[in-house]
């Protein structure tokens, strides 16, 4: 029992370290467009990202965590709790190692991919190849391809819509105010649905799908118009006012949207294996399906927030200085595309990378001819490291597993 207790403590430490890493590096990717477009200051970005990552992680986060924990690797097949415990720990260490390596070498490696690879290694070691649910894994891998494309399409459509319906109009200021309930409403619709489906909170309310849709729809319309009223009151119209003035305000909202989605999605990367460890240590066996305790999600959220607080400043400062061509309408389109993609994927239980969704969003706006110069070659690099990360972290996880097994 004593060794298990130590494993749990190590699990907490490395789980926190992973969450810290997400906060330090990945948050910059999602807040980049808002900071780059000067919609919010770095201080505000850190504040918003910190609070909303915790909220997203705690209240919307469960579903993805479940998938990583028992979707890809079916814990039901594992017979020996001791082996599973070591496996989960090695997965966590392997992922932490990979993320540290990537940070050190400045490689565009996704935390999500590292943890999924490590979990696969863990599964193979703990129960052989048969415990890997290849169908599920295939779906997850497919979601990595689809999520940037999905974000690209949304970003493209969003920016084209803004160009057609707002920018090309004689009075873009008024038009953007007039259409703001639409954009804000869609975001709220997605957020409310995320809250109602498959979260502990939503389950307590016990609302059926059609009812949830109706509630989300009504709330979205209501909140959309409230937001428009607020925008109208707090934005002064000047002679030179354009759509950007309105979108600068809207972007404050969308950066909250991004942070919320990120918290919901990414917390699983940090506490997925930790949840397994926690469960085994607490019950002494491997259960079929037990929801991740909410305090673990909260713990993950706090870890992310700490990462943002300590290292986010430096990263976002670089972004603010380097990305100068991003305007608020572009930033909004990128944010909206990324957050919607991540939110939807998160609700489907697919652990996608927030960073890649943001990259997809930028590409969408770039394809819509919205940005002065975007380098698309980054996708090849991302694909390369994506192909490399999963096997590499799986093998690392296997090696660590062997070592720990020798020691214990």
């Amino acid at each position: 029992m004593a060794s298990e207790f130590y494993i749990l403590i190590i699990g907490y430490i490395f789980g926190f370290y992973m969450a810290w890493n997400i906060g330090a590096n990945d948050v910059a990717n999602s807040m980049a467009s808002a900071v780059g477009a000067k919609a919010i200051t770095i201080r505000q970005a850190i504040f918003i990202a910190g609070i909303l990552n915790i909220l997203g992680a705690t209240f919307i986060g469960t579903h993805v965590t479940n998938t990583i924990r028992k979707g890809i690797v079916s814990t039901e097949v594992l017979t020996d709790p001791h082996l599973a415990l070591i496996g989960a720990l090695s997965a966590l260490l392997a992922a932490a190692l990979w993320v540290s390596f990537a940070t050190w070498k400045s490689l565009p490696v996704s935390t999500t991919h590292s943890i999924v690879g490590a979990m696969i290694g863990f599964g193979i070691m703990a129960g052989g190849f048969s415990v890997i649910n290849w169908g599920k894994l295939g779906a997850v891998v497919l979601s990595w391809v689809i999520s940037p494309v999905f974000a690209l399409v949304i970003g493209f459509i969003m920016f084209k819509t803004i160009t057609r319906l707002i920018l090309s109009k004689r009075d873009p200021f008024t038009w953007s105010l007039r259409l703001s309930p639409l954009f804000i409403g869609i975001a709220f619709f997605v957020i409310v649905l995320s809250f109602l489906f498959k979260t502990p909170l939503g389950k307590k309310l016990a609302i059926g799908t059609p009812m949830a849709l109706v509630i989300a729809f009504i709330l979205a319309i209501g909140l959309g118009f409230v937001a428009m009223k607020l925008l109208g009151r707090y934005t002064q119209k000047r002679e030179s006012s354009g759509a950007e003035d309105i979108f600068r305000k809207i972007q404050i909202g969308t950066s909250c949207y991004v942070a919320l989605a990120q918290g919901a999605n990414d917390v699983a990367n940090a506490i997925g294996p930790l949840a397994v460890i926690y469960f085994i240590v607490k019950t002494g066996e491997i259960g079929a399906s037990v929801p991740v305790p909410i305090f673990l999600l909260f713990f993950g959220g706090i870890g992310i927030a700490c990462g943002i607080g300590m290292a986010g400043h430096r990263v976002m400062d670089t972004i603010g200085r380097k990305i100068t061509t991003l305007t608020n309408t572009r930033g909004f389109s990128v944010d909206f595309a990324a957050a919607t993609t991540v939110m939807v994927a998160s609700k489907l239980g697919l652990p996608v990378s927030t960073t890649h969704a943001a990259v997809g969003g930028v590409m969408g706006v770039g394809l819509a001819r919205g940005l002065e110069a975007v380098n698309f070659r980054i996708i090849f690099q991302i694909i390369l490291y994506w192909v490399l990360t999963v096997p590499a972290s799986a093998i690392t996880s296997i090696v660590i597993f062997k070592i720990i097994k020798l020691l214990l």
Partner: protein
Amino acid sequence: MRIPFLSMFIKSPFEGIQEHAEKVKECAGVFQKAIECIIEERCEDFEHFRKDIDNLETEADAIKRRIRGHLPKGTMLTVDKFQLFRYLREQDKVLDAVEEGLDWLSFRSAAGIPEVLEKDFMLLVEAVMDPIEELSKMVVEARKYFSNFSEPQRRLVKDMIRTLRHHEHEADKLEDAIKEKVFNTIDDAVAVFHLIRLAEIIGSIADHAENAGDMMRAMIAK
């Protein structure tokens, strides 16, 4: 730092194009001074002006190379990359024509421009200054359009291109008038050749500015 987001954004080529247009404008100013100097007889600064233009041309060339060399494959711009390059080429040709004009003058600088034609040449030079001024203004406004996609802004750029064409037409008329006058007043065949060619070169400055405008029209097409 693992920030793929950051590496997606590269320096906008429009900055370089604006810079290049400023160099063209600067060159045009020196050119005008050089012509005035030639006409004022005892011109001592002519070589000095030529050197200035030479330096400016080298600087502009460096800007041009920087723009072309720093757009990696797979870069997405607000306009087609090759349209942008063709625009830049035309804008650069304006500069080349200015340089060629001074070079051509220097080959026969002792004779200079005959007194009867002095006024006409001054008018022609002045006429080609207008399109160059308009060109650098157009670049600034076009960049604004690519950022706000507003219809009034697009109309503004279109109007500027129209003005450019109008200026070119005016310069053309002056060029033709000079040619006619040269043939009817100068008897020395060598001088005739020198002056006709000079008028053509100066006229071509406006031509290239107009071409650049046309390329811009293609870039802002919906």
